[in-house]
C-alpha cells in the first residue's frame, strides 16, 4: 500500500497546517515523521486516515484518492495522539467493540493482541484504572489487532517505560515483516532512526528534509 502526497496543502481556518507536501510512503516500509510540536506530523496522519481532507492536492493510496474515491482507507490501524477508550469497559471489551464494526477478527485474535502489548494480566481491568502506559499499550493493540495494511502510530512510545519501548520496537518490526506500511511520528530521534527506513522532517507544515538509510538529502 504505497501512500502518495501530491502537492498537498491543508488549511484549517486561516492556518496552513500542511504546505505543498510531496512525498511517497513506500509499501512495506517504515516511514518516520520528525518535527517539533505543531509542525504538522499528526495532520499528515489525519490526512492519510481520511479524518481531514486536503484543501489542495491529493493523498493517494494505491491509486485511490482519499476523500474522493473513498472516505477512509480500506485497511487501516491507527493510534493518533493520546488513545481514548471507554472508561467503564475493560481492555478486551474496548477492543471488541471496535473489532465488531469490521467483523474480521475473533475474540482469540483480540486476546492475542492484548498479549502482544503485554496487557494480558490487565485485560479484565477497567480502562479507567489503567495507567498512562497501559492506555498507550491498548492504543497500540487497537492499531495492530486487525493486521491492517496501513498502520499509523503517533508518538507510540509516549508514557512507556523502557520495556514498553522495546515492545513497540518489536511490534513495529513484526508488522513490517508481515508487509504492513507503517508511518510513525516520534519525538525521540534515536528510536525513530532505529525503526524507520526513511525519515521526513517537517517544519511548519513543510517537508524540509529526508534521511534515507543513512544518506541525508534536502527536498
Amino acid at each position, binding site marked *: 500500500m504505497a501512500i502518495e502526497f501530491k502537492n498537498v496543502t491543508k488549511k484549517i481556518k486561516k492556518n496552513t497546517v500542511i504546505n505543498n507536501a510531496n512525498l511517497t510512503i513506500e509499501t512495506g516500509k517504515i516511514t518516520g515523521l520528525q518535527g517539533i510540536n505543531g509542525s504538522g506530523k499528526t495532520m499528515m496522519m*489525519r490526512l492519510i486516515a481520511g479524518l481531514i481532507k486536503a484543501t489542495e492536492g491529493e493523498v493517494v493510496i494505491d491509486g485511490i484518492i482519499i476523500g474522493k474515491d473513498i472516505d*477512509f482507507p480500506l485497511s487501516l490501524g491507527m493510534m493518533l*495522539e493520546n488513545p481514548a477508550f471507554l472508561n*467503564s469497559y475493560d481492555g478486551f471489551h474496548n477492543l471488541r467493540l*471496535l473489532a465488531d464494526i469490521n*467483523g474480521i477478527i475473533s475474540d482469540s485474535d483480540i486476546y492475542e493482541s492484548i498479549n502482544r502489548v503485554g496487557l494480558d494480566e490487565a485485560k479484565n481491568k477497567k480502562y479507567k484504572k489503567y495507567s498512562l502506559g497501559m492506555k498507550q499499550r491498548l492504543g497500540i493493540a487497537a492499531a495492530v489487532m486487525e493486521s491492517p495494511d496501513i498502520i499509523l502510530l503517533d508518538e507510540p512510545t509516549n508514557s512507556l517505560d523502557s520495556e514498553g519501548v522495546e515492545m513497540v520496537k518489536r511490534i513495529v518490526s513484526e508488522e513490517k515483516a508481515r508487509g504492513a506500511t507503517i508511518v510513525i511520528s516520534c519525538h525521540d530521534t534515536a528510536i525513530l532512526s532505529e525503526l524507520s527506513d526513511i525519515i521526513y522532517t517537517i517544519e511548519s507544515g513543510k517537508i524540509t528534509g529526508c534521511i534515507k538509510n543513512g544518506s541525508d538529502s534536502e527536498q
Partner: protein
Amino acid sequence: MKYIKLVKFDLKYGILKRWYTYLLYALLTLFACMDFSFRLKSFDITNFSLGDCLFYFYSGISEYIPKPDEPIQIPYLWLLLNLLVCYFNVHYMSDDLSGLGQYVICRSGKRRNWWLSKCLWNFSSVLTYFLLSILIVLSFCTFNNAEFSFEISENMNLICPTGAQQYPVSQWNIGSIQLLLMPILVCTAISMLQMFVSLFVRPLVSYVVSIVIYFSSMYKLSDLLLGNYAMILRSDEIATNGVSALNGIIFSVCLIFASVICGLLYFQHYNILSRE
C-alpha cells in the same frame, strides 16, 4: 452492512449504555404524574383521563400578551420535559467525534454511514425518552383507574395554571396528534437541528439554540417558532389564532430532513480533529 453495524453500535452505546439518562427522564415523568395527582386532590377531583394527564404535561401556555401587571406564567413542566431530552442528546454525537469515536469513524467506511447512523440514533433516542414517559403515564393512569381516552375533562381549566381558563373545554377538538405526535415530532426536529449545529459549535452552544427556540416560542405565538406546535394550548383547535398541527408536521418534517441532508453534505468535508 457496515451501516447496520454502526446503527447497532449507536443504539448500544448511545442508548443502552446511557440508561441512566432515560431513568432520570422516567423519574421526572413520575414526579410530574405525582404533581398532577396532588393538583387533582387540591381541587377535590377524583376522575381524570389519559388525555388530561398528557394535557397537563404538554399544554404549554396560551398566547402571552405582555401586560405590566401580569407576568408570564412559565410552563416549567413543558420546558423541562422538552429541554431535558435535548440536553441528554446534545453530547453523544460530538463526543463520538473524538477519542474512541475516531477509530469508529475510520471503520465506518463512509462518512455518510456515520452521519446517517447518528441521525437514526437521535430519532430513536428522542422516541425512547417519550415512549418511556408515555409508559409511565399509562402506568400512572392504570394505577389510578383513569379513563383511557384522549378526551379532556372540564376540570383541566382549573388544573392548568397557564392560561387554559381562557378557552372552554367543550369547544376543544384535540386528540392524539396534539397530545402525542406533536411534542415528539417537534422535539425530534429541534434535537436534529441541535445535532447539526453542533458540527459548527460546541455542544453546549448548540443546546442554547434549542433553549432559544423553546423560550421564544413560549413568549411569542408564531407559525415560525417551532415550539408553538408542541404546546396544546397554542393549537388552532383550541385558540382561534393558534397554530395548525398540519403546518407543524410539515415544518418539523422539513426541518428534520434539512438537518439530515445539510449535515450529510457538510460532514463530507468536515475536519475530524481532537476537541480536547
